[in-house]
């Protein structure tokens, strides 16, 4: 520690410049193909998650456009039943597994380490492995679709329709393995995020000073840890039934079709909160920035997010109200499904209070976030209607549910996501997106979205069920379907404008600087884009909105090595410095292991022996991944151990 009037020798401009050169060399990555496959940098990988997810989103959007084309008129013949069934299944499966979850995790991967003031993410190689699995998953699913082996049993793949007797061929196996790919990937990322959030925060960032976006990523990651195993069990038992003749879902031998529904929905309901909560985290980030004040009700929002996470595990049977389960157990789920509205309501009220007492401006990012209010709240309210068992019996499995789910998913997640992109694009690229294009695309999107999906509420009440490849003219569903399909054109236009904005701004966008919005969280305390080592000097915090709280006077961390990749590990509760850990550098093994594992997953569609055979390269790749690169011989180790023992005792 230095006296007040002296500048620490390590913090002079010359020292910092030299340090930055060392750090750049230590944390930097080489260019070239091999480096591209070996990266463990959370910013590169986070960006890859986001971009790849949007590519899968675009393909799934094309599938949606095909559906709207087919449904625009009664008895239409654009798509026959077989292709239509593949299209709606692949659309739903891709949107849920290949877009929604990976994209919210991708934002977490990029921004959580920055927001908590860490040098990088924990378990970078696990993160890389998870990314490669995710990439292969999308190539696999869309590849199978193009080969006419796309899954066609609905994104929730009910049995016995997807079972060995009625799901002939390999299509349901493709679905099951797509799930295995993506859920393994998500679990990997969840572990990285939880560990980073708990152990790598900058000194001073106690849990109650963490940005709300980080809280939502934490809760989401926990939800993934406890929910994904259920879908793993479901898809694994389905594959077992189909591949080796187990009888989990065959009622003739003691199995039960409803077991599938319980296992699937126990996962899938928390899954939608996994998708939704980080989006509320984005709102809690963007909205206060453009209201020029810290968010109102930080503690209430944290409690709301956590309680949503818990209650989200207690509502899954509301997807099964029509199955004939006993009344008394079903009422519990109605109650829980209604109660989950309260924490979300609290978040809404806190945001309105923030706006009420702030000074509001309306850049494009803010417009998208405000769009959430118009769209998601309708979805939430139709959810209340669906939570009522008797009413649900009329509305279940109709276009009313299709409308509801798109209002909560697109309104609840896509709108804040787009707002997050307008907000964070400058940080990731150093350039601003064009504001006028952004605002135009916002208005087109909100008009097009409502035009597409609002009529579907009415169609559902009028008796139009889901998953129909066509409908007869005498039911009078034609006009509203035509309106809905016309709205889809506007959605496509808006997204095309967004893409155009991204592509042109990458080249010609205005320079952003470190903090174009005057925001308060740590990611804005470094360059745009951030250096490979994230921060210099390394910040500490003493409040929730560090950049609004006399940031230049905050102490900084010094003393970490710049010869090796050293990261400061801190305590869980109050982020006091604990020890220094050397993190591994780039490695090709995560990629190779992902290839081996993918071979195992895909092979097991064809034969159970693939699991045995595939285990060998997988095991080899994982061992090679772990095996340390040659370094010091064992006897130098004992000296090191002694020294570190001594240092540890002195520090204690």
């Amino acid at each position, binding site marked *: *520690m230095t006296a007040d009037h002296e500048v620490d020798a390590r913090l002079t401009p010359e020292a910092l410049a030299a340090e930055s050169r060392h750090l750049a060399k230590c944390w930097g990555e080489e260019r070239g193909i091999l480096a591209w496959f070996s990266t463990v940098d959370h910013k590169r990988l986070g960006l890859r998650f986001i971009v790849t997810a949007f590519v899968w989103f675009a393909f799934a959007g094309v599938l949606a456009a095909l559906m709207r084309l087919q449904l625009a008129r009664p008895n239409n013949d654009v798509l026959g039943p077989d292709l239509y069934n593949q299209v709606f299944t692949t659309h739903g499966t891709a949107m849920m597994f290949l877009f929604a979850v990976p994209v919210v995790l991708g934002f977490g991967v990029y921004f959580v380490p920055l927001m908590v003031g860490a040098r990088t993410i924990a378990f970078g190689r696990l993160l890389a492995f998870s990314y490669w699995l995710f990439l292969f998953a999308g190539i696999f699913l869309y590849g199978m679709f193009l080969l006419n082996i796309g899954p066609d049993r609905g994104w929730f793949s009910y049995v016995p329709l997807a079972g060995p007797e009625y799901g002939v061929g390999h299509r349901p196996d493709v679905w099951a393995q797509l799930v295995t790919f993506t859920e393994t990937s998500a679990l990997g990322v969840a*572990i990285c995020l939880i560990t980073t959030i708990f152990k790598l925060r900058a000194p001073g960032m106690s849990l109650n000073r963490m940005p709300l976006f980080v809280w939502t990523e934490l809760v989401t990651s926990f939800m993934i840890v406890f929910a994904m195993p259920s879908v793993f069990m479901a898809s694994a038992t389905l594959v077992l039934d189909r591949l080796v003749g187990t009888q989990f879902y065959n009622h003739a031998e003691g199995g039960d079709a409803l077991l599938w529904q319980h296992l699937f929905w126990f996962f899938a309901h928390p899954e939608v909160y996994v998708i939704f909560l980080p989006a509320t985290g984005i709102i809690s980030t963007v909205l206060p920035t453009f209201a020029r004040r810290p968010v109102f009700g930080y503690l209430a929002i944290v409690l709301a997010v956590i309680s949503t996470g818990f209650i989200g595990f207690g509502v899954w049977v509301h997807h099964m109200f029509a199955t004939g389960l006993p009344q008394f157990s079903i009422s519990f789920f109605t109650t829980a499904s209604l109660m989950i509205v309260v924490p979300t309501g609290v978040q809404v009220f806190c945001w309105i209070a923030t706006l009420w007492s702030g000074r509001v401006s309306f850049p494009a990012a803010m417009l998208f976030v405000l769009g959430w209010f118009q769209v998601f709240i309708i979805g939430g309210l139709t959810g209340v209607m669906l939570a009522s068992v008797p009413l649900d019996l009329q509305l279940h499995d109709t276009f009313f549910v299709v409308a509801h789910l798109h209002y909560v998913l697109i309104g609840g997640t896509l709108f804040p996501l787009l707002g997050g992109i307008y907000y964070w694009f400058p940080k990731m690229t150093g350039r601003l997106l064009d504001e006028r294009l952004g605002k135009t695309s916002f208005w087109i999107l909100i008009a097009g979205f409502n035009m597409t999906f609002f009529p579907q509420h009415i169609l559902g009440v009028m008796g139009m069920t889901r998953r129909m490849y066509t409908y007869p003219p005498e039911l009078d569903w034609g006009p509203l379907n035509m309106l809905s399909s016309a709205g889809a054109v506007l959605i496509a236009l808006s997204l095309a404008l967004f893409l155009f904005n991204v592509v042109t701004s990458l080249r010609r966008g205005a320079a952003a600087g470190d903090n174009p919005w005057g925001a308060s969280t740590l990611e804005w305390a470094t360059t745009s884009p951030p250096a490979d080592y994230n921060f210099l000097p390394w910040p500490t915090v003493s409040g929730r909105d560090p950049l609004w709280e006399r940031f230049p006077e905050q102490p900084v961390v010094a003393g970490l090595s710049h010869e090796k990749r050293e990261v400061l590990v801190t305590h869980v509760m109050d982020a006091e410095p604990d020890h220094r850990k050397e993190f591994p550098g780039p490695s090709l093994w995560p990629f190779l292991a992902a290839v081996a594992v993918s071979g195992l997953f895909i092979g097991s569609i064809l034969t159970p022996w693939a699991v045995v055979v595939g285990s060998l390269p997988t095991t080899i790749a994982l061992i090679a991944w772990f095996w340390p690169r040659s370094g010091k011989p064992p006897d130098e180790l004992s000296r090191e151990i002694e020294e570190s023992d001594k240092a540890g005792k002195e520090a204690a």
Partner: protein
Amino acid sequence: MKRRAIDVSHLPTHAFGHRSIMWWGGAGLMAIEGTMFVLLIVAYIYLKGRSPEWPPGHFAPVLFWGTVNTAVMLASLVPNHFTKAAADRLDLQGTRLWLSVSLLFAYAFVVIRIFEFGSLNVWWDSNAYGSIVWTLLGFHTAHLLTDVIDSTVFAVLLFTGPLKKSHFVDVSENSYYWYFVVLFWLPVYGVIYLAPRLA
């Protein structure tokens, strides 16, 4: 610029227990796999509740091999405990010794597991009961195998090097994982071997 610097250069370069990030990775893995075990057990109970006769035909698994293996697994916790203690104090010779002893138990319980499968008295494709019992046992076996492979790799590394202090943390974490695999076996044993014998 009157900025203070907080100097961390004196901090140790490794830590044990929940202070280490490896612990959190391991804890995450245990949470995931523990949830899977719980779900499998719940599925067992669910299917049992829907069956008039359980097991169908009333052929419960033979108790012998499963009980022997449980004893072997529990016994393996002793060398496992000493392995962890040695790793925690960075004792290279002690870790080498006790991990090797633990491995002997591990190879034993993997071999006995093969006999367990043979003594279940049902095939996985006979009925839903057979399916869930084989899946429960199979899933736990996957954990035994992972434990064996992990521990073998660490044992080899301990003898060949190159070693770092953090590898002792890894061995310590592996011991935690071993505890998890053995302790989670107990309810699974109860479900597979004892539940069919309840009235």
